[in-house]
């Protein structure tokens, strides 16, 4: 114990005295394709992951709210969201895999270091996800989902979900702060650390969670259209009211998070985000497309048309994608003193990259075809069930 304390003192002193940062060397295998392609794949898949995550976060919070308020039609909308949660969680996890893969190729040495330093919370993500995923299935399959015990389980699952997001934000922010690494390693080599003193930590956490209300709002907008098309006008209008409120709330929170994060950033970084050409363009594009999405949600309310929720979905995707790219631009800027993508050699694997492209396209076409064959029947069946219960 005394030795451990002495070690901690030595290591902390070494860090304080500005000893060389322990930046690992890039992998000797280099990049398998030029980094721009890996970045593009990472942006695309991370945007999908964020959308699925936002859908899950927004759905669980709105589900709990509706279960408490219990106004007319709330119960049926709550059931819709409850049924949605296991599915959205599945895709949250599935779409989370490729961005994590690509970030490890691009920034592995930073990402692994921060993961090890946060080892305990990082590995805790796994049991938390098992718990929340299992809880979402349980509340879907259980006979009495409104039992207080089941609702408590849902609240705990929601908290687990928020915790997972918090741990991810911790890791990502620490991965771009190598100057903190030795201090944290000295404090707890077992990884019982969090990156709590990052000034942008909570703002970034809010930034990734806030769109949850907006994305869940769009999902509810879809349901509202379905109700209107099936002649369940009152229920459809009820759904659309909630959809609009949720979408607006999400956008307001996102704006707060955006302003907060900009004000909490170091001056040089803020100046880069607000004045550098690419960063400014991405920020502007994201804000503009989010505004377009919100307008489409407004315009689509009380209308029995798929066009509005579909276009709103596209707009929010196009809003999120530039912000995801902006996130990477900020990371590159933060890492500039220590690391540059251009300095890592490329040992091209074009054949494998092409094979991946073939599989990806074939897989997506196959899934689309299957959906066209199966989903209309499922919707028709649901319609019959709803009419009966109405």
């Amino acid at each position: 114990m005394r030795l451990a304390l002495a070690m901690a003192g030595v290591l902390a002193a070494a860090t304080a005295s500005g000893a060389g940062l322990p930046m690992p060397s890039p992998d000797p295998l280099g990049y398998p394709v030029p980094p721009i392609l890996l970045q593009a794949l990472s942006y695309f898949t991370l945007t999908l992951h964020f959308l699925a995550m936002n859908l899950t976060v927004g759905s669980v919070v709105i589900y709990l709210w509706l279960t408490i308020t219990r106004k007319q039609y709330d119960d049926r909308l709550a059931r819709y969201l409850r049924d949605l949660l296991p599915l959205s969680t599945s895709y949250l996890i599935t779409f989370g895999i490729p961005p994590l893969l690509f970030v490890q190729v691009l920034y592995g040495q930073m990402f692994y270091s921060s993961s090890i330093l946060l080892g305990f919370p990082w590995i805790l993500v796994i049991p938390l996800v098992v718990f929340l995923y299992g809880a979402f299935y349980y509340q879907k399959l259980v006979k009495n989902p409104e039992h207080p015990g089941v609702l408590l389980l849902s609240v705990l699952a929601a908290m687990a979900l928020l915790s997972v997001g918090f741990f991810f934000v911790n890791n990502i922010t620490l991965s771009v702060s190598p100057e903190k690494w030795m201090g944290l390693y000295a404090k707890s080599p077992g990884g019982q650390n969090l990156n709590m003193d990052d000034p942008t930590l909570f703002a970034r956490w809010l930034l990734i969670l806030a769109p949850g209300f907006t994305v869940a709002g769009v999902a509810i907008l879809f349901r509202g259209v379905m109700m209107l098309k099936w002649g369940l006008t009152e229920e459809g209008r009820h759904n659309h009211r909630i959809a609009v409120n949720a979408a607006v709330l999400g956008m307001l929170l996102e704006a707060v998070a955006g302003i907060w994060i900009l004000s909490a950033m170091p001056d040089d970084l803020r100046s880069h985000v607000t004045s550098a050409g690419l960063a400014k363009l991405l920020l502007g594009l994201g804000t503009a497309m989010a505004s377009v999405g919100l307008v489409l949600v407004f315009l689509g309310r009380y209308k029995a048309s798929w066009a509005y929720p579909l276009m709103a979905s596209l707009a929010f995707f196009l809003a999120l994608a530039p912000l995801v790219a902006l996130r990477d631009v900020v990371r590159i800027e933060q890492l500039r003193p220590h690391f540059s993508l251009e300095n890592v050699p490329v040992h091209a694997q074009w054949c494998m990259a092409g094979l991946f492209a073939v599989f990806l396209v074939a897989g997506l076409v196959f899934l689309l075809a299957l959906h066209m064959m199966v989903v209309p029947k499922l919707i028709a069946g649901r319609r019959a069930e709803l009419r009966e219960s109405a």
Partner: protein
Amino acid sequence: MNYPIWDVGGLGAGLVVAIIAIIHVLISHVAVGGGAFLVVAEIWSRRQPDGQRVRDWLHTFATFFLVYTTVLGATTGVGIWFSVQLASAEAISLLIHQFVFAWAIEWVFFLSELTVLYLYYYGFKRNTPRMQTFLAGAYFVIAWGSLVVINGILTFMLTPGAWTIENKDIAAGFFNPGYFPALLIRTVTMFLLAGLAGFLVASRIRDEEFKGRIIQFCVKWVIPGAILVPGLGYWYFTTLPASTVTILAGGTVGVVGGTLSALTRMAILAGVAGTSLVLGTLVFAAYPKTVNTIAAISMLLVAQLGIMGAEFFREMGRKPYVIHGVLYSNGLWVKDAKDPARLNGPYLEKAKWHGGVASGTLAHGEQVFRLQCASCHTRDGYRSVVYRTRNWTAGFGSRWLGTMHDMGVMPPFQGDALDKAALVAYVLSLRGETVDPRDLLPDRQATAQGDDLDPDGSGQALPGLEVAGAEVGR
């Protein structure tokens, strides 16, 4: 030395990986074999006089299958990845940089199998029988496809074949010598495990006659796999590196201090578990109506033990490497170890995560322990260093460190005499002995040979000093 070490007390980072991995392997194999089970059960149910009742049972099986494989299977799969990042960052970095697009292709399979499974499950009561059979079949083919991909990366770690860090020949690495036997072993094992999962769901059926028929149906999934695995296992054995075979043989004849090596024990555990499963299944076949939930769960637990044995065997078989012949378990590259100047020079000058500790102190020794030993050993828990060095004396350790690589299961020591002395002093301090590392330097030791457990100076341990890594943690 490139990355910090996740220093997890008595557990050890490697054991965290192992715990998650053995859970995942069982579930992921059920997830693939269960797909084939669904196809055959779909067809079989339509040939039964009480087909609807069979389909109702199949729906129960599908619900169990969906929840079990998605909640526990998918998340523990990601869990392996998370834990390996913590336990062996250098290795996962190499694998990801070499096989990133293979992993990405596996992800396409994963996305597809998940989606198809949902279409199958949610359409259970609405799709036509033909569509359900097609979806189940598509699910199986895609899920097996994901195995075809990941198997290349898994087997690469033990038998990288003609792949080298210089040629980076991805095809040679992927279709390595262990690829096809491992693929076939896993394929037949997953059919076997699907049958075991079927036992569990069938055990809940109240109608004894109906339960008997379902149990007999499940028996047909277990027996063929159980018969084929030993033969395929032998084929796999013939592809193993010579060093692995040597350790296995050494354990079998008991040359390691008169005890079985851990590797051999794990192989035996897998064999005993497999035999028990065959016997249990034969009992189930003879008395199908008596199968209850406890018996069915017991069979799955035995299978879990068998998988534990097989997976530990695969992992331990790589010793002292994490990627055979390329990267040692503690992150030392074999290419670097071939450079004597790099290998034998002062360690702290090369290590990145020592934090500037003073040379020749216990803190120095702890850093050497953490960066060179802690990826496999704990201080006094799993694979305990205190236990393994219980007979060490102050004079013995440094010489043993200098020759440990020759034993075949340990990487070479990195560092000079002072690094060795610091590590030995630190290890001795773990059991309460206070030694100044500088007193262990060779020039000072020349005058103190009396207490040595290595009288001939060969560095070979006397009986009772196990080869590190050959014992399962105490």
